């Protein structure tokens, strides 16, 4: 007997978002209107590309853990999702400690 789908509530970039139990994080993001949520190495917007976990474009930060494929990870109630930025500043080396 069909019953109403169970919902899960997650947090996306600080905002509460509802999804269906069993949805992947990518499914929830795309159902909510997003096509992109990550910044690539040169700051370009990225979201799902291959959908099967081989391209690594759709990465999100889940509960503080980076590099989680949104298209593979099923959302769990209470998950805290943040958008990953891979246009990280390159480190300055030992410049402040440069002894010449």
């Amino acid at each position, binding site marked *: 007997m069909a019953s109403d789908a169970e919902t899960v509530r997650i947090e996306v970039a600080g905002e509460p978002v509802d999804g269906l139990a069993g949805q992947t994080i990518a499914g929830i993001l795309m159902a909510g209107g997003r096509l992109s949520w990550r910044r690539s*190495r040169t700051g370009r917007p990225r979201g799902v590309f291959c959908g099967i976990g081989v391209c690594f474009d759709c990465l999100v930060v889940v509960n503080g853990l*980076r590099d989680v494929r949104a298209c593979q990870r099923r959302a769990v109630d209470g998950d805290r999702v943040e958008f990953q930025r891979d246009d*990280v500043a*390159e*480190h300055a080396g*030992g410049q402040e400690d440069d*002894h010449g």
Partner: protein
Amino acid sequence: MGAGIVGAATARVLARAGCDVVVVDRGATAGGTSASGEGNILVSDKGPGAELLLTWRTLAAWARVREELRDELPAGFPDLEFDRKGGLVVATSPEGAEALLAFARTQRAAGVRAEIVDDARAHELEPDLTPDLTSAVFYPEDAQVQPVVATEALLAAARRHGARVRQRVEVTGPLLAGGRLAGVRTTAGDLFADAVVLAAGPWSAGVAERLGVALPVRPRRGTVLVTSRMPARVRHKVYDADYVGAVGSGSADLQVSSVVESTAAGTVLIGSSRERRGFDDRIEARVLAALAAKALVLFPFLADAQVIRAYGGFRPYVPDHLPIIGADPRLPGLWHATGHEGAGIGLSLATADLLHDLILAPETADPLADAFRPDRPGLPQEHPDGAT
């Protein structure tokens, strides 16, 4: 023979001096050990001695060569990423601290800038470093370069001065003339030369054998883990104090001492393992596990880091841990520039300069070269690892 960093540096120096130079490699340029390491130019792991002197010379040479390359290389050539990063050696046990401090004392006596730093200063240098360190020494002279770009740059400069680089050409045998090496036979025909330089890294013994001489160089396997890019939290090269012991050891068993550093690309490299197992290139989980465990001792935060790649390479290892540079007394015309173990990048330019003097102006050659002669006392002709 060999288009890795040592062959490239040597080719450039000789081409600049007006020699007609041909570089052959059975594979691609920068296709061997030069592409397997981190591009280290280290004083931190050198005790007093000839290798340390050679390292200082290479460091000084890099400053000069980088300037020269600006004129020699075409615009848009990839950046060498030379970085005077500095290295921090960290002990995490009382025995480790004792050994580290003793070593640092001998280094300081030889003129190495080895700054013993206290806990607070160590964490100022590396905020994410483990709280459980027992002693730490900072070496501001430690530097790094992108090893593949450096190799290709030196080759490009050599070509600019007329050198020819021939890839996929394999040496098959000697050309002898009156007991002297007058060139080599290759898969692409005979090449005649006044001087034949062997710079084939861990494969040098095999090449030497084809030319009729034995060379005590064997492969020493290393494996590296690479993480995805992340916001920078490791600022220098950081090693556990076991590193010194691991380099100097003759043991064939797996030895792991941790080396952790960030790259310009934002990834973190995690090394370093040492095994003597011939040219067996398989990657084993137990080696990766040992690398990972030791890295986490230094930087616990890395437990969450996503490792995306593991690769390995072979260092050219000589039983007395010194490179072999100079004329082969058994075969006039053959010159060696090999056996640099894990320090090829860091000894490359000075090796090339030494060889230049030995070949072209032997009367001016530095007495330092004696330490690296193929017939030096203390270098067995037979390698304990046996046949190639």
